[in-house]
């Protein structure tokens, strides 16, 4: 008998969590640590003030010398990348660069703009800009390279009673973007060319409801003219130019330059069914992460960023930006964008959304140049745009 995934998830969590016997709390120790921390926070106020003044002075110097966001100082005290095996890193592709996001601003191509991108998933980098669902309604938008945010679709879907899906897929090496418009019965997939602003593909597919959760088809990945559809566990490659659908064995997690990756790099995809020239990346064991825009490299972002040539794993580049690495992704120009955090990790504001004692910095790290500050240290959390962050 088939059991749906929702039920299996509930059962699995209940079973595993229920099997664990919680240890006894040492409340006295918690109180002692809490008292020490309160004391440290009070004592730290004056030190923070001094640090803030020093930081302001340093930023002032940068402004006086005309250094823009991309012109910050090279990483002080080391941090130069280590290249092994003659690794040169990914090739440059045409696209937006230096993309960082805070809750209120976007840093792009050396400037920053007061644009709100989704704080979590849903945005993807395309050749002409960042495609994203607009917060509050998920209207598909494109943040162009000059910081102009333009709608790609009407405020409400054309399909009566439909809502936009919170996911806009984009081809990192092309101009196609795709999104879904759902009703409770069906999903309309729309593919638009951001260069001509014309819809080049449209198809309507049925949704499946499982215990109150709708499973509607959505375009998950777009690459080289092919739209990979997630159909509730099945995966289809759709070519809007020829209106052909091909079942592929597994949903790709990313695709660039006709190279596919799968989730956790565990599965296999029938690349031969998609078309000539398609291949699946097979990174070495233990390496997983982001696929480069040229399709040739994997960025293992589980700590200090490490770039690996998946076709020749002896070629690696490791970056060592200062601070604790919170996230990293490839940039279209072949460099690696990194967000680091400094501060007392145990001092996060209990309110949970404002990490008042943390400092975030955005870096652009490149072979031969070290890491440069793109987004100066700040108290607002900085994030990157990627499929999996």
């Amino acid at each position, binding site marked *: 008998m088939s059991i749906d995934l929702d039920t299996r998830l509930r059962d699995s969590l209940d079973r595993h969590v229920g099997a664990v016997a919680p240890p006894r709390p040492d409340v006295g120790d918690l109180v002692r640590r809490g008292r020490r921390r*309160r004391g440290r926070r009070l004592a730290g106020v004056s030190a923070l003030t001094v640090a803030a003044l020093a930081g302001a002075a340093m930023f002032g110097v940068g402004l006086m010398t005309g250094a823009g966001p991309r012109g910050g100082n090279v990483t002080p005290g080391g941090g130069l990348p280590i290249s092994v095996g003659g690794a040169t890193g990914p090739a440059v592709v045409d696209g937006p660069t230096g993309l960082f996001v805070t809750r209120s601003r976007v840093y792009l191509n050396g400037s920053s703009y007061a644009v709100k991108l989704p704080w*979590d998933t849903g945005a993807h980098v395309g050749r002409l800009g960042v495609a994203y669902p607009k917060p509050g309604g998920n209207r598909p938008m494109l943040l162009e390279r000059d910081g102009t945010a333009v709608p790609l679709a009407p405020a409400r879907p054309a399909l009566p009673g439909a809502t936009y899906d*919170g996911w806009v897929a984009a081809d990192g090496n092309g101009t196609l973007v795709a999104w879904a418009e759902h009703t409770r019965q069906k999903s309309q997939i729309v593919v638009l060319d951001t260069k001509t602003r014309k819809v080049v593909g449209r198809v309507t597919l049925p949704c499946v409801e499982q215990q109150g959760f709708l499973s509607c088809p959505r375009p998950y990945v777009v690459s080289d003219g092919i739209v990979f559809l997630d159909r509730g566990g099945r995966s289809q490659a759709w070519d809007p130019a020829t209106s052909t659908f091909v079942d592929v064995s597994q949903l790709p997690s990313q695709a660039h330059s006709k190279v596919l990756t799968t989730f956790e790099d565990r599965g296999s995809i029938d690349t031969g069914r998609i078309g000539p020239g398609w291949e699946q990346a097979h990174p070495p064991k233990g390496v997983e992460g982001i696929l480069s825009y040229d399709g040739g490299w994997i960025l293992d972002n589980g700590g200090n960023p490490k770039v690996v040539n998946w076709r020749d794993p002896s070629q690696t580049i490791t970056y060592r930006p200062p601070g604790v690495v919170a996230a990293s992704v490839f940039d279209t120009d072949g460099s690696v964008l990194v967000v680091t955090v400094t501060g007392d990790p145990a001092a996060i504001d209990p309110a949970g959304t404002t990490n008042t004692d943390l400092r975030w910095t955005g870096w652009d790290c490149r072979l031969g140049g070290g890491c440069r500050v793109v987004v100066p240290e700040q108290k607002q959390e900085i994030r990157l745009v990627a499929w999996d962050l």
Partner: protein
Amino acid sequence: MTTEDYTAYVEGAWQRLFRTAYALTGDVRTAEELLQSTLVKVYVSWRRVARADSRDAYVRRVMVNQAISGWRSRRHRDEVLTPEPRPADSAGQSFDADLAISDELWGLVQRLPPRQRAVVVLRYYEDLSEREIGSVLGISPGTVKSQASAAMTKLRAQMQHASTTTPGGHQ
């Protein structure tokens, strides 16, 4: 601020909070560290916490946001454990298959990106609504939906792969 009040709260809430911490981390030691660290912070701001409509909701919010803050999840990324081997069971093949799927899912949930994992735990373990999850994580219900959808997409893809590579694969 009364230490007695705080102590009473921790003693009463520890077990249920620990279970949530365990669901979020998948590891007993890490769960205990997460919960201890959370409760230390809660002590520092106990006046504010004590005034909250729901202390549990407030503390859970602190804990979940701490669990998904970048460095911790990444530092512990390599420590995600595969399910421990189970002894052979004579209850029948379908029972074994269900347990295998349950173990597989547990491992896959622990390998989800931190925010997606938090959404899954809050949705399927805590049974919170999308609005409540949004409140815990400080994100909109629409973002919760897209996070949940992305997580489910990933889980389905991985389960599908498991079913095609495991002899007698799951359904």
